[in-house]
């Protein structure tokens, strides 16, 4: 297979104006969403860890725009952008960050665990490399049922060192599964640079020994990413075999909000920022006459207002009730009839039984939900500084 080295890509021609505008809008939405999420984190509206995809917007939008509606997308703990690009309501994504009931996952998953079944965004996952076997499983189910949908599985350069990487490449190739694996190579596995964590830095080659050919795209260029991903998806869909795509990109912000970035120089970041996908793509559209500069600014203002509304929505959404603590651990049915805890469940009622009728005050953990902020050790240092 022809190797696609594109760093930077030659511009293969912009998509038609309506499409180009929509891509810019989608990239803007992710950028403004992520910036605001960072601000909300600093204000302690968002808990846990927060991994922002600023700088990776072209990789996200270029690749997801190559998908059909019924295709599956699965990603990592850096997935706000993926679920937004797939069409999730920004209100609900922000509400999930806030841990509220109107969040995509009702406040259960938080930043690292987004999921939107309706839009076939099959999840963000907190275990590095944990999502690869799942992606192969989606592809197996598609293949088994004779459906022609394809799975696009995104993960970072760091995940290419996990055992699941090799295992999944082998199985996907062996079973000829329709799945495209995309390494979002942002140059760092947390704070460890690519050349310090991977013996082979041409990541597109890492699948070859398992029978998975590689392609590479310029992940700072939405058009190139779209074109290469489109090729890869077509091969997976029509020829029924997996493809590995390395999208070369860069994250402008730290790994998470708790990252003092001592592992890279400001000069390196500045060099990559010259290729800011949002700026470069916006400039291209203006130069091509697809968008006026004033329209571009208006689009940006509208995007910021959209995020304002998402923040207001999230802030107004209630915290989950203590009554919800045990919901959805199990699918309830004949065998598992109560949510409290199955090791307490018996044919006749005792503690915890018939819990839907219980008063909130009777719930075992009600007292712990009286409000107050739980400290988050690793991130406290960064709070308020970003």
């Amino acid at each position: 297979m022809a190797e696609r080295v594109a760093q930077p890509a030659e511009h293969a021609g912009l998509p038609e104006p309506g499409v180009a505008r929509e891509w810019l809008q989608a990239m803007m939405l992710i950028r403004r969403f992520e910036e605001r999420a960072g601000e909300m984190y600093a204000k302690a509206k968002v808990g846990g860890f927060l991994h922002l995809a600023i700088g990776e917007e072209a990789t996200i939008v270029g690749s997801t725009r190559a998908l059909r509606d019924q295709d599956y997308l699965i990603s990592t703990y850096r997935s706000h952008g993926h679920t937004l690009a797939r069409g999730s309501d920004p209100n609900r994504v922000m509400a999930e960050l806030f841990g509220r009931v109107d969040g995509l996952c009702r406040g259960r998953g938080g930043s690292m665990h987004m999921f939107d079944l309706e839009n076939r965004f099959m999840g963000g996952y907190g275990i590095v490399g944990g999502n690869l076997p799942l992606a192969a499983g989606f592809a197996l189910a598609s293949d088994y049922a004779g459906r022609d949908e394809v799975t696009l599985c995104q993960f970072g350069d760091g995940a290419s060192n996990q055992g699941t990487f090799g295992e999944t490449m082998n199985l996907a190739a062996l079973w000829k599964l329709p799945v495209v694996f995309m390494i979002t190579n942002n140059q760092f596995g947390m704070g460890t640079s690519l050349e310090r964590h991977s013996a082979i830095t041409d990541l597109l080659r890492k699948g070859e020994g398992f029978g998975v050919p590689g392609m590479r795209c310029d992940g700072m260029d939405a058009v190139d990413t779209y074109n290469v991903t489109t090729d890869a998806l077509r091969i997976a869909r029509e020829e029924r075999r997996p493809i590995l795509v390395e999208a070369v990109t860069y994250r402008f912000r730290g790994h998470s909000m708790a990252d003092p970035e001592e592992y890279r120089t400001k000069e390196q970041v500045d060099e990559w920022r010259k290729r800011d996908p949002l700026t470069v793509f916006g400039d291209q559209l203006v130069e091509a006459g697809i968008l006026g500069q004033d329209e571009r600014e208006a689009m940006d203002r509208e995007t910021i207002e959209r995020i304002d509304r998402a923040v207001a929505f999230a802030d107004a959404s209630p915290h989950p009730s203590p009554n919800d603590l045990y919901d959805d651990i199990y699918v309830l049915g004949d065998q598992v009839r109560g949510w409290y805890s199955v090791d307490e469940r018996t044919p006749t009622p005792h503690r915890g039984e018939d819990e839907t009728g219980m008063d909130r005050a009777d719930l075992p953990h009600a007292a712990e939900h009286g409000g107050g902020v739980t400290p988050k050790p690793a991130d406290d240092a960064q709070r308020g500084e970003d």
Partner: protein
Amino acid sequence: MRYREALNSALREEMERDPNVMLMGEDIGVFNGAFKVTAGLLEDFGEKRVRDTPISENTIVGMGVGAAMTGLRPIVELMTINFSLLAMDQIVNHAASIRYMFGGQVKVPLVVRMPQGAGHQLGPTHSHSWEALYLHVPGLLVAVPTTAADAKGLLKSAIRDDNPVVFIEHEYLYGQRGEVPDDEDHAVRFGVAAIRREGSDVTIVGISRMALTAARAAKTLSAEHGIEAEVIDPRTLRPLDLDTILASVRKTNRCVVVEEGWPHGGVGANLAALIQEQAFDDLDAPIQRVTGADVPMPYSKPLEQIAFPHEPQVVDAVLATFRDR
């Protein structure tokens, strides 16, 4: 019918009933399974539904999770419970958590089958009994069938359930015979314990093979000591039929828990806590635990034999509950 044949017939019937039921595992097809549980299924159902996999435990379980999320009802066989630790990430961080962490948007109707148990001189990497590891995890259902009838009935229920199930078989039990109802709808509901022997003097709870050891000990207790033991096989640990155990303890006022696994954080430790929380006033003696030795399983036959419980230890533990009367 032998236990392994009962499992085989459950797999066969459920595959016939539901075209979305499929099998994955190491050497389950051409080789017919390391313990022959899947014998003949490849021939009858074909390569699409009976899939030999590479040796990649974590990934084949993870693929099962993914396939379960998108419409299939996969059954993954792991060759021993020791190997399931390689898949712990997919079982615990993924299968058990996905429904909850995604707010109930998806279900994971996956069964992961694995045998456990000592006695074949397989040493410390093939012989352990770890139902306690999976009992620990919310989001999983855990079955530990002892008889052939339960092996079949529980496996059918596991396959039909919409939750992820860790289905723990036993290497010693594979060859044991038992009556199995000749009924395609013979399903044993999770969360209902079996009273293997009725008695009024002491309650013995036996897990997996230890339900048989407990039943033999009960005969000795009756014949040699005039003690009538009630033997309970919980059959599933999540959900657990605690009420049947509590009702028995309230009657006998004594309890012994027998398991093959390690003592610390074991099934018996958990059961003892639950029983004393809810039936403290009914107990006439401290709850006794009979467990595997607190060691990695040794290869040496005599050492291995003393590293997991046998009938005399169960008898001694029961007698200990009478000592202070």
